[in-house]
């Protein structure tokens, strides 16, 4: 096991940030911590990277205790905090050199590990970090977190506020790093990214309420989901909400995902009900859940 977390709790004044959190991450696993802002993700990262002490519970990273052996942990983990963590006034190359030197290594020594990513920002190596675009900043931050060849990589919301193109590229880079047997713990508020992880944990209000592979999580989701479309989506949403025993109505881009509490509820019933409301171009499909459906319908 690369990361072991046992009953970790942490509170700040009136806020209980983490409550009895437990999970394990295997070596070489890409493990996703999925949850919204304020769920406790960053607190957990800070505990595992030895920047914060837990009040209760135990945690081990690469075999070392986060409380007793913090120096050993710091040497063998890479950490990319949520907020842009680089030195704004240093250039791309200076930032990288700085991080390499701090860990007693050089860019050359571990160049292989960062090469794929670094070549993309190398044309801008003399540009200051503050003048980089969002996507390039993420790439540089990842290089800096990797330059000492860590065993475990902690990425706290690396793609928040990043456009879809850069997000896609970023996940392709993570897949390649995984092949190098680096354990990766990554957090994200983007539910579509969850399906790219080996396993995920859902976290909300400081508690983990589900841990499994994305495939199993989708497979185990019981309720029937109807994907509904019509020409007047605004009206459709309010009509759907009026149906007796409605569990949830969530907009998903050009359609609405509808779930009813009652197992005897059918597509035909839904069809009949909406036909009475005179919707044009009505389309109803029974669909498989997405990770986002599961997350939003968790009780």
């Amino acid at each position: 096991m690369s990361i072991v977390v046992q009953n970790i709790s942490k509170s700040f004044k009136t806020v209980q940030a983490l409550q009895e959190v437990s999970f394990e991450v295997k070596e070489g696993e890409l493990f996703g911590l999925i949850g919204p802002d304020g769920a406790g993700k960053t607190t957990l990262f800070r505990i595992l990277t030895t920047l914060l002490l837990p009040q209760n519970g135990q945690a081990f990273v690469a075999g070392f205790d986060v409380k007793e052996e913090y120096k050993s942990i710091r040497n063998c983990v890479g950490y990319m905090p949520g907020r842009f963590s680089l030195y704004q006034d240093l250039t791309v190359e200076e930032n990288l050199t700085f991080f390499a030197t701090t860990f007693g290594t050089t860019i050359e020594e571990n160049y292989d590990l960062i090469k794929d990513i670094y070549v993309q920002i190398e044309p801008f190596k003399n540009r200051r970090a503050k003048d980089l675009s969002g996507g390039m900043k993420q790439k540089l931050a990842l290089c800096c977190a990797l330059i000492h060849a860590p065993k475990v990589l902690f990425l706290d919301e690396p793609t928040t506020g990043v456009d879809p193109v850069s997000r896609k590229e970023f996940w392709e880079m993570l897949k390649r790093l995984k092949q190098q047997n680096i354990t990766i713990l990554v957090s994200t508020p983007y539910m579509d990214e969850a399906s790219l992880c080996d396993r995920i944990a859902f976290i909300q209000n400081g508690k983990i309420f589900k841990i499994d592979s994305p495939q199993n999580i989708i497979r185990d989701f019981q309720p029937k989901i109807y994907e509904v479309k019509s020409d007047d989506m605004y009206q459709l949403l309010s009509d759907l909400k009026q149906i007796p025993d409605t569990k949830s109505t969530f907009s998903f881009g050009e359609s609405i995902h509808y779930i009813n509490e009652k197992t005897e509820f059918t597509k035909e019933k839904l069809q009949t009900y909406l036909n009475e409301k005179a919707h044009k171009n009505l389309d109803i499909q029974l669909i498989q859940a997405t990770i986002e459906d599961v997350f939003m319908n968790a009780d």
Partner: protein
Amino acid sequence: MEQENIIQVNELTKKFGDFVAVKGISFEVKKGEIFGFLGANGAGKTTAMKMLIGISKPTSGMAIVAGLNVAQSANEVKKNIGYMSQKFSLYDDLTIKENIRFFGGIYGLKPKTIQEKTIDLIQRLELEKVADERVGQLPLGWKQKLAFSVALLHEPKIVFLDEPTGGVDPVTRRQFWEMIDEEAHNGTTIFVTTHYMDEAEYCNRVSIMVDGKIEALDTPKKLKEQFKVSSMNDVFLKLARNIE
């Protein structure tokens, strides 16, 4: 019937030294429309938006917002618009009530109006229990819903939303868009940026900026037809890939 244009942009350009951040963009936004302003990081969205809300002067070209030329009447423009961004919207160290009072004052509302609006707004957002707590204590999702309502305090004709839902949980994100929809139905024009491509589908029309220029502008449906793909995410990937 042709609806009136509430935003009209013509060859709008912004240069920083040799760097041209916005390269002569032209488009219109109709009254009551939800207009999605998309683009990759660094494509020039924020720079363009800053010109439209009167806090950055165009190098050349023209933008008319709510009937006013942004280059000449920046301060008048500000009175007619609301603005919220992910990065800055409310003061964390002030309570919910204090924030409402502060922004009401900034927007020039009468104390009595502010009082009425405060009660109404706190009720509508179900914030009665936390009304006297500091905004910094609130979950991001609540904060963003509050910030949106505060941006609408002075009943602006247009509201500009810069990545209002970044990092917000999926349920609250949808509630936020229901608020946007309702406001648009009341006739307010919504100008919004987002990195969530499902949200692009909720817009009446969407523009996609690449490298300082608007490369595509249409309804989500027509854009998907034009690029022969099934989602806005794919439209975006097709247009913006390999550019940086």
